C-alpha cells in the first residue's frame, strides 16, 4: 500500500548544526494496517510522518503510495490521499470558522475550491447526522466557532474532519499528548472506532507504551532514525511492556531511557 524505500533526511545541511535525523529507512505498510510508532525523543518519529505527508521533503529515497510515486508531490498535493492529525489540538482546525465551515473544508480536501457557496443545505444536514452518530454533543454546535470548543472536543473534532473523506492513509502525531488521561481515552477510542469502521491504513505516533500495545495491529519502534523493532499481528497482540523493554535493549544496544516514554 505504502512503500518507503531507503529514505534519508538531514537537517541544516552544510551548517555546524547539521544533523541526520532519518538514516536510510525503509518500511512497507499493508492495506488496512494500523501501526503504532514509539521511540524516544529525537528518534525521528515525527520527521518520518512529516516526510510521508510532504511537509518535509526527503533528501534521498522514494515514497510510493498505491503504485504512485509521491516522493516529489507537494504537501497540499498529497492531501488528496493523506490526512493528518497533529499533537496540538489547536493546529488541526480553524478557530474563526464554525464547525460546519471547518467540516466543509475537510469535505473538499484535495479538491478544487470554487466560488460556489461554501456549504450546501444537504451538506449541513449530513454533518448534523454525522456528529450525532459520534455522540460527543457536537451536533447542536455546528454554527459555533471552533475556538469555543475545549481541547479534547477540538481534537475529537479534528479526527472527524481528518476522516470525513476516507483517506488512503491517516497520519496521527501524538494526537492525545496534550490531553488529560480521561479525554485521551475518549479520543483514542474514537480513532480506533473510525479506523476500524472505514478500514483506514493508519500510522500513529504515541509516547504512551500501553496505548501503543492496546491499539493497532502492528508496532514499530524507532531509534536514531532507524526502525529497530517491527512487531506484527499475533505477536503484537501478546506483547507486554516488559517484553518491549527487553527487546529494545537487544535491538538498540542500550537500555531505554524511561523518561522519554510513558510506561502506562
Amino acid at each position: 500500500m505504502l512503500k518507503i524505500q531507503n529514505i534519508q533526511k538531514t537537517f541544516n545541511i552544510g551548517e555546524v548544526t547539521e544533523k541526520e535525523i532519518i538514516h536510510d529507512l525503509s518500511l512497507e505498510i499493508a492495506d488496512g494496517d494500523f501501526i503504532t510508532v514509539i521511540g524516544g525523543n529525537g528518534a525521528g518519529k515525527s520527521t518520518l510522518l512529516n516526510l510521508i505527508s510532504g511537509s518535509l521533503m526527503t533528501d534521498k529515497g522514494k515514497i510510493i503510495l498505491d503504485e504512485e510515486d509521491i516522493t516529489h508531490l507537494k504537501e497540499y498535493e498529497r492531501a488528496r490521499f493523506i490526512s493528518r492529525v497533529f499533537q496540538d489540538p489547536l493546529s488541526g482546525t480553524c478557530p474563526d470558522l464554525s464547525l460546519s465551515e471547518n467540516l466543509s473544508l475537510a469535505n473538499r480536501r484535495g479538491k478544487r475550491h470554487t466560488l460556489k457557496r461554501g456549504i450546501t443545505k444537504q451538506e449541513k444536514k449530513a454533518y448534523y447526522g454525522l456528529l450525532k452518530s459520534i455522540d460527543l454533543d457536537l451536533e447542536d454546535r455546528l454554527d459555533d466557532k471552533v475556538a469555543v470548543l475545549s481541547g479534547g472536543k477540538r481534537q475529537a473534532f479534528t479526527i472527524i474532519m481528518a476522516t470525513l473523506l476516507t483517506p488512503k492513509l491517516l497520519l496521527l502525531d501524538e494526537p492525545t499528548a496534550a490531553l488529560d488521561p480521561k479525554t485521551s481515552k475518549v479520543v483514542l477510542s474514537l480513532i480506533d472506532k473510525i479506523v476500524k469502521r472505514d478500514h483506514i491504513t493508519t500510522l500513529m505516533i504515541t509516547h504512551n507504551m500501553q496505548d501503543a500495545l492496546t491499539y493497532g495491529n502492528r508496532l514499530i519502534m524507532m531509534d536514531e532514525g532507524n526502525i529497530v523493532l517491527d512487531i506484527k499481528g499475533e505477536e503484537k497482540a501478546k506483547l507486554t511492556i516488559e517484553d518491549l523493554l527487553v527487546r529494545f535493549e537487544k535491538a538498540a544496544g542500550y537500555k531505554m531511557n524511561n523518561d522519554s516514554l510513558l510506561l502506562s
Partner: protein
Amino acid sequence: MQAILTSAIAQGLLWSILAMGIHVTYRILDISDLTAEGSFTLGGAVCASLLVMGVPPLVAIIVATLSGALAGLVTGLLHTKLHIPILLSSILSMTGLYSVNLRIMGKANTSLTQANTILSDIASLFGMSRDRDAAIILGIIAVVVVILLLVWFFNTEYGYTIVACGNNDKMIRANGVNSNISKIIGLMVANGLIALSGCLVSQYNGYADVGQGIGAIVIGLASVIIGEVIFKRRSLLLSLVGIVFGSIIYRLLVALVINTDFISANDIRLFTAIAVAIAIFIANSNMFKKKVKKNA
C-alpha cells in the same frame, strides 16, 4: 456644523473601503501589509490620470481597482516565491509604488477640477448643484456593493480557504489547499479595495496626490478598531458594518480635534497613531484577561 457632519459622513464612507481592505489583511489574513500606503495612492493616481484623459469614470474606477489588485499580487509573489518576510515584501512594494505613482501621473499632483468624475455624473443625475453633494450617495452605493461582494466571497469554498489560511496555515495545507495562492488572492482583494478607496477619495478631494497614502494603514486600523468596539467581532457582516461606522466616527473625531486651538491639521497623524496604539494595547490586555479565565 452641518457641513462638518456631511463631510465627515461622506469621507467616512469613502475611506471605510480602505479600512475593509485593511480588515482583510490585518484581521482575516493576520498579516501587516504596508502595500496599502502605496496602493491607496496608486488607485488615486491611475484613476485621476484616466479621468483627465476623458475615460468614463466607471471604467477609471474599475481599472484603478485592478491596479491595486496587481500591487497586492506583487507583494504576494515577493513573499511566497522569493520567500521575503511579508512585512518586508510589502515595504518593498510600497517603496516601489512611490516611483510608479509618480510615473503614472508624471508629477506629484493631478488636479481633477476640469475632469468629469463619478461625482459629477451622480450630481447631474440627481440635479445637484455641487459635485460634492453626491459624495454621500456615491459612498453608500460603493459601501453596499463592497460589503455584499465581501460577504459573498468569504462564504464561498474559496473564501473559507482564505480565512483558514490566516488562522492556521498548517491545517489548510494538510487539507490540500495551496496556502500561498490563498494568501496572494487575499492580498489582491485587500489592495484592490484599498485602491478603489484611493480612487474614490481622489475624486472627492478633486485631485490625486503622491502623498495621499501616507498614514493610510493607521487611519484604516483606527476605523477597524472603533468598529470592533461598537460591534465586537461577531460575524464578517457586522465587522464590515462596524468599520463603516468606525470610519465615520473617526472622521468626526478628526473634525472636532482640528477645530480645537491646540491641534492643527498637521498633528492629525500623530493623534491617530497614538490613539491606535492605545486602543490596540487596551484590546490586547482585554484578550489576555479572557484567556486566563478560559483556562481556569
